[in-house]
């Protein structure tokens, strides 16, 4: 490599520059005789390899968008139900006398358990759908 550009003003110490230039320029290596042939063989092998299969975005995208929309809708519904349940619980707590606190306190765990059950069911369903979808895509 030869460049004819002027040297930048970095060589504040010519002796150091000389030592480093000597160090970095020593041992010029001629390529071994078979180097180009080896590289070309590797390039031909690379060219002969089949192109990697592109990810099937066209098939996956509609399903993925539908699943995401469904998940978001479900999350919005659960959030709505949860806020409704909390509002109902707090109004009941305010309405009932303190002696019946245990009975009213039992309502909150019930609604939480229901929500947890719904989440678990949805997660299982999603897992099953994902497994079947991937199996079907892989078998094509």
């Amino acid at each position, binding site marked *: *490599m*030869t*460049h*004819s*550009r002027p*040297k*930048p003003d*970095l*060589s*504040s*110490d010519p*002796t*150091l520059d*000389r*030592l*480093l*230039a*000597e*160090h*970095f*320029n*020593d*041992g*010029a*290596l*001629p*390529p*071994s005789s078979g*180097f*180009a042939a*080896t*590289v*070309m063989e*590797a*390039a*031909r092998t*690379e*060219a002969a390899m089949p192109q990697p299969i592109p990810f099937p975005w066209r098939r996956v995208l509609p399903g993925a968008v539908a699943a995401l929309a469904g998940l978001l809708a479900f999350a919005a519904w659960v959030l709505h139900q949860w806020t409704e349940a909390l509002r109902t619980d707090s109004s009941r707590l305010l309405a009932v006398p303190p002696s019946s606190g245990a009975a009213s306190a039992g309502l909150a765990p019930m609604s939480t358990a229901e929500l947890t059950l719904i989440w678990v069911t949805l997660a299982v369903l999603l897992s099953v759908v994902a497994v079947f979808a991937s199996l079907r895509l892989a078998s094509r």
Partner: protein
Amino acid sequence: MGTTEQHSAAAQRAEADRRDVACVLAGDTAAFEGIVRRWQAPLIHLAYRFCRDRGRSEEMAQEAFLRAFCNLAGWRQQAAFSTWLFALATNLYCTQLRQLPPVTLPFDEVHEPVDPNALDAGFEERSRRAAVRKAVDSLPAKYREVLTLYYFHEMDVPAAAASLGLPEGTVKVRLFRARKLLHGKLTPLMEDVALPRHEAKESL
């Protein structure tokens, strides 16, 4: 070789590169051989400067050529093909060498004193080279890489910056710091080198 001839040769190489790349992209794999033959020596030499091992430098250069072959479509032709190729190779070499354990030498052990009375000039030369090599090897990788590319491109900062994919300002700062570190490590050696041999003997 004069400056005009150098420019002419560089222009011919650039044109040949452009033609070969177009052929390879059109499906003619054999056209890649022209690129390999034109750039094998510089790429092996650059790899050797990084790893200081002949066998390994050919392996690294081969890997760089293969990567270039697979990514030829990525050359946008805004810069010279050689700039793109050196940037790709430098990136690969730096990545590969950073995976190796670094050389950890205490700075005190870097300088091997040169005996001014030694009659064997070859020995003196060898010990000086060994001292410089140890000092360079003990630098942090980012400084060593900048120095390697700076001297590979014959002290051309823009070319070194293009190969490293760094702004010129960053390269200049790293060069300055690397040189400062080396200056500290090699001061006794530089004093010996700066004085001609007979003057050094007379001063004793």
